[in-house]
């Protein structure tokens, strides 16, 4: 049966991984969001070339498993001598940055599609009203479209955030010692893999559960009274 003693004793080994998992999640979310903005604007652009390019970008990153994207960056790029001799090589051979690059690109496709949809959902009349009031295009975007789109996108984005935290477990496949990586190591040392991975599961659950609680509070704080 399940050995609770082992589960308890393995927590300290995994806690080092928690710091890395959180660091990875934060950086991926930050870069993913920054990249998602151009993806979303391009997706809604009137220029067919731009919107087609954005669609292809989204299609590729959403159609291929994230683990393959991680492997393409971490193992794949080194195939090219030009990459190996470039000044970027110290970054591109570091599994930490490889995971961040791959998952940020991946996340930007999901978030970009989400934001694009939310921006399209902003009523045209509001945009026209803002323009009629003499607001510039940029100002309209900044004061009308983006705030409304962010509020509309937030519930789905919260989901995205949780999925991103869970996706950082892929770090363990490229030698990083995040929670999953630390669990793999502890599993091979203790010969009690079952208990170790249950302990890791508990850690992830606590992380994601508190995160989704916080995000719900944020949604409530941003919700306009009278709506929903």
């Amino acid at each position, binding site marked *: 049966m399940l050995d609770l003693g082992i589960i308890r004793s393995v927590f300290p080994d995994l806690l080092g991984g928690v710091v890395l998992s959180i660091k990875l999640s934060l950086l991926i979310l930050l870069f993913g969001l920054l990249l998602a903005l151009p993806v979303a604007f391009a997706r809604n652009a009137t220029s067919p070339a731009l919107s087609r390019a954005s669609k292809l970008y989204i299609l590729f990153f959403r159609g*291929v498993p994230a683990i*393959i994207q991680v492997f393409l960056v971490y193992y794949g790029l080194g*195939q090219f001598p030009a990459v190996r001799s470039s000044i970027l090589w110290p970054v591109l051979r570091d599994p930490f940055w490889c995971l961040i690059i791959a998952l940020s690109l991946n996340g930007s496709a999901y978030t970009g599609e989400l934001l694009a949809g939310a921006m399209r959902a902003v009523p045209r009349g509001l945009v026209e009203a803002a323009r009629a009031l003499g607001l510039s295009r940029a100002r309209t975007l900044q004061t009308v479209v983006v705030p409304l789109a962010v509020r509309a996108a937030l519930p789905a984005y919260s989901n995205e955030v*949780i999925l991103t935290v869970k996706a950082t477990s*892929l770090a363990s496949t490229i030698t990083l010692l995040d929670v*999953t990586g630390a669990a793999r190591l502890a599993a091979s040392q203790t010969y009690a893999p*079952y208990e170790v991975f249950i302990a*890791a599961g508990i850690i992830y659950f606590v992380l994601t559960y508190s995160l989704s609680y916080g995000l719900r509070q944020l949604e409530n704080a941003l919700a306009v009274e009278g709506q929903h």
Partner: protein
Amino acid sequence: MTLLASGYGLQLLWGALVTVSLTLCALAIGTVLGIAGASAKLSRHRALRAVGGCYTAVVRGIPDLIIIYILYFGGTIALTKLAGRYVEVSEFAAGATALGFVFGAYASEIFRGAIGKVPKGQHEAGHVLGLSTVAAFLLIILPQAWRLALPAFGNQSLILLKQTSLVSVIGLEELARAASVVSGATREPFTVFAGAAAIYLVLTATGTLLLHHAEARSARKYAGGA
């Protein structure tokens, strides 16, 4: 490109075949679990509703990778206990069960939502017609709920297809694992993983087409009414 035309290409295609079978097995397991989960969530008994709620909460909060590991190692321990000697659970069975378990949690939410959207009058009509609760559910509610659930269900199936790549971590030679093996042998990792990515794109695109087809069919059947 010549690389993929050689025996290595075949190895990738074989991996793709394993990926597809793994997806279908997990889909079958997950659909059953999804129906069971939705029934639990819609149950009159508070305990069953709590179990259904916990099921989804646990799966939402834990990475699929961890669930695969737990079922793989836990399955071996359980089988060993049952058989009285060391039995290793197969990677395929552990993977299909783990991904089916995950799929079922999301599917139970999808089914519950869809069943809730079927108008209450439909239940009542079933009763008036003299159908038992079970018969009314199977004959009246389920067919309508299925149509409502199809888009989200299909979407989740495509996610499942991609998540099968995670079973590579326990050594099952599906497409992602096959690509790792081939890239190690050929020393051309980018070419090989790009090839694997292309195969995945073909698979997800095919899945999307099938899904659109199924949605169009189910819409046509109800075009007159509903």
